[in-house]
């Protein structure tokens, strides 16, 4: 008994020392090394792929923002209302009454565009910060945005194309339109708020 409690005591002491040494290696040196690589080689990505306009940061090309009003393209419905310091989804199942009601309310609201709303327009994203919409949802909104801004639909369509990213390496993920980049290009094109 004395031996076994001695064993436990000695192993615990060893555990404490191993734990402290590993914490320095894995909790300080390792993240610092990765941070160093980021500083040197991938500064833009490491700091959040920020977008600047008129010399100041207006957001990140990776983080979706809330847009309202007919002069802007809108992103997907968000469970966190695109507040950057929270993230998450609705967690509702398709069978849930609340989900059916929410989808049907969104469909009604989108009826002003005419045409069938694509799935991403009717559903909340996983992060609440989805920066993208499908090209179909962008096309659905194009006519309204063009009319509000007094632009030819063709011009707006060209801006959509410019803000569209294809699949990575031609096959990874889905084609998508970055809403913030698209709206920023609208702003730069028309020069109005």
């Amino acid at each position, binding site marked *: 008994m004395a031996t076994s409690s001695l064993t436990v005591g000695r192993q615990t002491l060893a555990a404490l020392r191993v*734990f402290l*040494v590993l914490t320095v290696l894995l909790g300080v040196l390792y993240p610092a090394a990765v941070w160093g690589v980021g500083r040197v080689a991938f500064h833009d990505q490491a700091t959040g792929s920020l977008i600047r306009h008129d010399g*100041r940061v207006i957001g990140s090309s990776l983080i979706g923002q809330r847009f309202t009003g007919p002069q802007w393209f809108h992103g997907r419905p968000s469970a966190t209302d695109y507040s950057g310091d929270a993230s998450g989804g609705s967690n509702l*199942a398709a069978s849930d009454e609340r989900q059916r009601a929410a989808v049907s309310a969104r469909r009604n609201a989108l009826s002003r565009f005419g045409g069938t709303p694509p799935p991403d327009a009717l559903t909340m994203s996983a992060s609440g910060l989805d920066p993208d919409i499908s090209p179909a949802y962008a096309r659905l909104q194009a006519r309204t945005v063009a009319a509000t801004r007094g632009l030819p639909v063709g011009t707006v369509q060209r801006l959509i194309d410019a803000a569209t990213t294809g699949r990575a390496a031609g*096959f990874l993920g889905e084609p998508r339109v970055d809403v913030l980049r698209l709206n920023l290009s609208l702003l730069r094109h028309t020069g109005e708020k």
Partner: protein
Amino acid sequence: MSEQASGLLTVAVLVAALAAVHVPLGDYIARVFSSDKDLAVERAFYRLSGVNPQSQQRWSRYAVSVLAFSGVSVVALWALCTWQGRLPLDRGATMDWHTAINTAISFVTNTNWQSYAGESGASALVQTLGLAVQNFVSAAVGIAVAVALIRGLVARRTGLLGNFWVDLTRATVRLLLPIAFLGAVLLLAGGVIQDLAAPQVVETITGGHQTIESGLVSSQEAIKLLGTNGGGFFNANSAHPFENPNGFTNLVEIFLILMIPFSLPRAYGRLVGDKRQGYAVLGFMAFLWTSMLVVITWAEQAAAGSPTGAMEGKEVRFGVWSSALFATSTTATSTGAVDSWHESFSPIGGGGALTNMLLGEVGPGGVGSGLYGALVVAILAVFIAGLMVGRTPEILGKQVGRKEITYAALYSITTPALVLLGTGAALLVSGAKGAILATGPHGLTEILYAYASASNNNGSAFGGLSADQPYLNLTLGACMLLGRFLPIIAVLALAGSFAAQHRRPTTDGTMPTHTPLFAGLMVGVALLVTGLTFLPVLALGPLAEALS
């Protein structure tokens, strides 16, 4: 390119990459744990820690070392979470006492169940100095235990399993750290952030304001996946654009999840001196993973025919195929990271993710835990086959006698007991029942998923559950603790009793454990045990929902 073609090509590239890497990586892992030499950095490390790397441990001392190390880790992490407000870089992050207990257990047991939200619950110091460190060492503990079991199978009446401190150090320094560094750089290149500055509030072009988060994400993200941990830096986990910005990083993340678990069978084959033994285990794991991928992808594709396109809780940049691939891989291992919300999946899609965990996470399972779980299935399979044909059950020349099968049985009933008792009890507690978001059968699945995830050390969730309350934090914490360490003790005891045996020569009467037939038998045993245990509750949850 159609969505189907893109999805199939993604799976094909992933499988090709895993097939290419599992041989060299498996061989490398075998060398790491059979080498006599210590690296200079490791010798310095042993001197600093006061560990004698030459001393060999019997199973009981190996187990004491595992428990002592994990115990120290839990206490230290709990203290860090509890007093984060008094330490630098806290930025207002706080946790309740029960949340801190849950979190400490969760990260030490390789579960990474999160009842806090990363943005508001964990300071930069907690994330980097606490959680990310456990992401390494909890994975290393799993690998060490798997290696100890292999040594038990190989040992000739020595009773010795190696030295836990050496295995822990080597798994960390030679295996996890270099791959995590490469993975972190790849993710960084893909757009994952790695920044020390405080989050900034920016004025948007519409005159609104938005917080842009920061943090040492990339370094933590890589080991979160490589170590099959799964705890997100942010609440939305790998769905958050700063953790997983595009289709490329998504594939890298899935690859990181699967690379070590699918390489360990090769290491096993090498270490026991018969590569074919590894192929049988690999075949078993690959069959389960592929089958579940087909089921979950099919279910989500079928659901995508509706007007909502199965896009609730999914990101546009990933779509349905990549989300299903991620969900399958994260629940087939002990990872639990998510790039989409499993609760919003179709009944069979979400039920598939649940079933992956209920299978005991052996297809391919977590780092280390997947291999020792699969070897326990192999032991059950030789035992059952031995009973059927009247032969003495043996694995690699070691007899599976009364003692061994008792340990294997204890291993196999621990998590199912925790899952079913935990779920049943929670349904009787009004506080726990009130935490359920969904109604009807989906609500039962939600609470079942939580206890399955905790007991199997997965960590993914049907996220509608409001889990941050004392009853759920404490009972799920108990499930994580018991679901991790009771099986580990059973595995080490098993290793000890194998290590005390002679290795018997193979004869014509020995049942081969390297054939496709045996891999098939393992699949049968896994399905049978899981089916008998869980079919009733699955019928009341996901199956009832799918049929209604």
